[in-house]
């Protein structure tokens, strides 16, 4: 048993190194100023928020808003910085943020109270709720029909958590990413896939045969999207929020919204009056 003990001791020594790793003390604005790069966390398949388009470029609603924040940071620092992009996923994004690999998560992250224990969020820039996407003609019309059915979710998403905690009758199949989940749905290995409604609409319009897919159900959750950043960095947070407020006040936000969700866009999703008032109410006076 000597070997057993030695290996365990070695493991504990390595762990204690990890535990005593030096704390990061540099603020985000300092970091951006020194490195001259502002790095955002993006996704390759979350249309229309953050994805790789047909021209093989990173694009999306969140990306365009991040561009405005980028300008706000340059104004604050008084110098030009580059905007870098790094691929993230629900499972990796918080770790990438706390390890300083990215400065702002700009994909589709729902602001929740438990998440506020580990990160800070910007103003809410979009509101949606969880729905199901099914093949046309499926008997599933909403959350009442999912008992015993194979329901796909994405690991680390808020929808997965709600289904696991509140709708225990469903047979959950948790996939690492959206592409795998939608593939399994297309092959009939899942009866439905649950995600934020707006993302399901995005999936439907991006699929080879959009008419074949239906988004069903009442929202089973409330999903306000915010940009996530490292905790306790209020200077950086103010820069991000001011950029968003200026965009809402000055109308750029609504132009970008029209570009991605307007009647002529790929994912028409007209803005409700309630959401518009909510956005405007988030803007504090100059």
């Amino acid at each position: 048993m000597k070997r057993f003990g030695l290996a365990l001791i070695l493991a504990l020594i390595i762990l204690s190194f990890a535990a005593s790793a030096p704390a990061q003390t540099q603020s985000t604005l300092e970091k951006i100023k020194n490195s001259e790069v502002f790095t955002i966390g993006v996704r390759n398949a979350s249309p229309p928020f953050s994805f790789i388009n047909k021209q093989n470029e990173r694009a999306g609603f969140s990306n365009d808003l991040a561009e405005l924040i980028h300008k706000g940071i340059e104004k604050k620092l008084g110098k030009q910085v580059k905007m870098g992009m790094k691929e993230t996923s629900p499972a990796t994004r918080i770790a990438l943020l706390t390890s300083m690999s990215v400065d702002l998560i700009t994909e589709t992250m729902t602001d929740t109270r438990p998440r506020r224990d580990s990160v800070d969020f910007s103003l809410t820039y979009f509101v949606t709720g969880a729905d199901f996407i099914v093949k046309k003609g499926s008997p599933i019309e909403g959350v009442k029909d999912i008992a015993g059915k194979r329901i796909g979710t994405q690991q680390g998403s808020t929808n997965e958590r709600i289904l696991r905690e509140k709708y225990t009758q469903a047979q959950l199949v948790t996939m690492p990413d959206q592409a795998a989940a939608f593939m399994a749905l297309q092959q009939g290995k899942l009866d439905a896939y649950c995600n934020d409604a707006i993302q399901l609409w995005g999936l439907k319009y991006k699929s080879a045969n959009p008419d074949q897919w239906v988004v069903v159900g009442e929202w089973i959750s409330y999903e306000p999207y915010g940009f996530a950043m490292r905790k306790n960095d209020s200077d950086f947070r103010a820069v991000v929020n001011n950029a968003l407020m200026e965009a809402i006040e000055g109308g750029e936000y609504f132009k970008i919204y029209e570009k991605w969700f307007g009647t002529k866009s790929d994912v028409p999703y007209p803005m409700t009056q309630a959401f518009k008032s909510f956005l405007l109410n988030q803007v504090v006076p100059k």
Partner: protein
Amino acid sequence: MTYEFKWSVLWAQPHLTWLIDGLLTTLRLASISWCIAVLLGIVFGAMRTVPFRPVRAVATAYVEFFRNVPLLVWLFFWYFGAPEAFPEPVRQWFIHHGIEFWSAVAGISVYHGARFAEVIRAGIQAIPRTQLEAGLSSGLSVVATYRLIIIPIALRLIVPPATNESLNLLKNTSLAMTIGVAELTFAARQIETYTAKAVEALTSAALIYLVLCLSISSVMNWLEGKFAIPGLIARGTRAEH
């Protein structure tokens, strides 16, 4: 911005249940795959050494085809590709009886079967040819010589490399999370995404894998000593442990 450790997330419910379920799934996945892989390994490893060319060719094709594609690709193949080829009723049956798990079993056992075959071939080829000739000249058939003489000796010779392969198989079960199998690594990631306590969650998985692997190598070491044929194989002192 300092990272605060909170080890209690590991035994807070439902996290502990996830870890235990994940561990049980890992053990089930590893043990079923291991049995199939060893069986495939013995059959194809032996076939690669028999004195008939067509049999050797079949076994070589199996080994080279399956060991030269990454396991992750195999898992996607067995989950997204292979089931589509089955007739619809069979496919539906699998879908409703844990298709994720059985696709993982198929991927891991066939891939590791090819690797085990190489280990066993090496074991057989380490046995002097005279053993086979002695068996044949005493009136045994080729199959009987293999079953009674060659394979029993080869199995004893290959314990150290086979242990290595077994540990690899156990650790490779973690890839099954990519096709939705809720095994141990999946459970650790799950805790991490719920609590944002990455270090704690992944450390727990690392320690569990470490303990599992050390246990397996202890058992294999014991087996090696227990089944050694005295005087047959020249060996130094037993491995220190």
